[in-house]
């Protein structure tokens, strides 16, 4: 859901950006390391400890065999990411190690993890030293105050001026019925003249307007094709921002051009490269 943070946590722990990691939603729990490991946390703010000491986010941390990482509670945000050097080892399904929950395949047995599950981590052949790097906050997305930039959607022209004013000038809140397929929003309904349209492709971040006029923002497990009109699309650079909003949190939409949106995405990619380079350099210096 917040793929920027997963990539950043991977970089901080010394992994390739796309190594498999853990996405941890909302609750507390703990993980025991059965072997020495290097890891990094990112995303939601949480009271996290390793062997009794505070485990800070966006920091390379060394765990000894037997150490337990305990998350007492998530205090803000929605998804905590745990990246372990070597990456999580699971058999790929359809070319990916991700879990596709609606289809119950991929990842770890196609399901969320539960107490007692045991995960394999890939071999760390880098011999890089192991802790202390902390990533600067300026390289991370600004999650507060929940400003989400959008570009015009494929059916933008079907919505009139007053609908656009409503969308970009109102505060919307994430509804309780929100999950990995989409976030329903509570707030002013938009007049939707379109009704049923022939289905066409959509993408994560698409803002669709069903009959009741309340926006639904499609997220990571979203349908790939659908018939509700799309008024706008969340800038990919801002998907992490909306992903980390919990039910009851508010967001505001700001309209930007596709040029601005793609520039912002390139800046995020550049920031990830910077994080990766800094993490590697800090490891080398320490050795």
């Amino acid at each position, binding site marked *: 859901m917040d793929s920027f943070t997963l990539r950043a946590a991977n970089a901080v722990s010394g992994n390739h950006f796309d190594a498999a990691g853990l996405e941890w939603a909302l609750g507390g729990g703990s993980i025991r390391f059965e072997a020495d490991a290097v890891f990094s946390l990112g995303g939601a703010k949480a009271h996290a400890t390793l062997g009794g000491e505070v485990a800070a986010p966006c920091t390379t941390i060394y765990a000894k065999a037997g150490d337990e990482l305990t998350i007492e509670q998530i205090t803000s945000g929605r998804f905590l990411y745990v990246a372990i050097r070597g990456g999580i080892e699971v058999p790929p399904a359809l070319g990916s190690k991700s879990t596709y929950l*609606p289809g*119950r395949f991929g990842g770890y047995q196609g399901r969320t993890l539960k107490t007692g599950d045991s995960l394999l981590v890939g071999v760390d052949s880098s011999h890089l030293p192991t802790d202390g790097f902390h990533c600067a906050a300026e390289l991370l997305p600004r999650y507060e105050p929940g400003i989400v930039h959008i570009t015009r959607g494929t059916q933008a022209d079907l919505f009139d001026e007053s609908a656009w004013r409503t969308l970009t000038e109102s505060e919307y809140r994430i509804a309780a019925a929100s999950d990995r397929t989409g976030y329903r929003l509570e707030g002013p309904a938009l007049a939707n003249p379109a009704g049923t349209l*022939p*289905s*066409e*492709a959509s993408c994560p971040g698409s803002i669709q307007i*069903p*009959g009741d006029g309340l926006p639904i923002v499609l997220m990571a497990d979203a349908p790939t094709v659908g018939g509700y009109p799309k008024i706008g699309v969340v800038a990919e650079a801002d998907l992490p921002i909306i992903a980390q909003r919990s039910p009851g949190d508010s967001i505001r939409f700001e309209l930007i051009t596709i040029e601005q949106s793609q520039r912002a995405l*390139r800046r995020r990619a550049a920031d990830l490269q910077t994080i990766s380079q800094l993490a590697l350099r800090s490891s080398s210096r320490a050795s």
Partner: protein
Amino acid sequence: MSSSSLRAHPLGDSAVTIAFGSERSAALLARIHATARSLEAARIPYVEDVVPAYLALTVFYDSLHTTYDEIAKTLLDACDRPARGARDTAPPRQHVIPVHYDGMDLDAVAAATGLSVSDVINRHTGRAYTVDLLGFVPGFAYLSELDRSLQLPRRPEPRPRVAAGSVAIAAAQTAVYPLDTPGGWHIIGRTETMLFDPGREPPALLRAGDTVRFERVA
């Protein structure tokens, strides 16, 4: 931006939707499928996926290495030129899907259409459908064309969860949900047939161009 009658529009940062027309037809759909195959055969740099639909196709691309303006122009030019080496379609297959007609919306559909439940079922089983395209979730096939008397708009609000195997109708289409997913169509029955199996090759049972009949079972 447009080229002849085709119009391009961004779909977020990493996709372009190219609109071919405003009225659905079998001919337009065939043209879109042919263009999609042609774009794939052309191996345009940075193109990652091509998704055909009823009035448009959408091309997903690597936007870190190209911009919307550049890729849209390249794609519109390519749509005008049929590529050599586009693969021929595989021969269409005929499928029969057994259905228990006990869906949660069956009575409501009968009421809304003014038909008896028995008539709704007979009109649903009474014809062969063509697979127009795949999308929505893995293995989901949009089937056409539903009997005119059964055509109803989608539900005003999608349900957060429709069970895998649900047989549904909306507008001029019918379909089977392959997985548990949100859904806005009217549920009229269920089947045990697996529309998507990640362990099967290929995982999806249905392909664009195949035909499907539904058969009532107890």
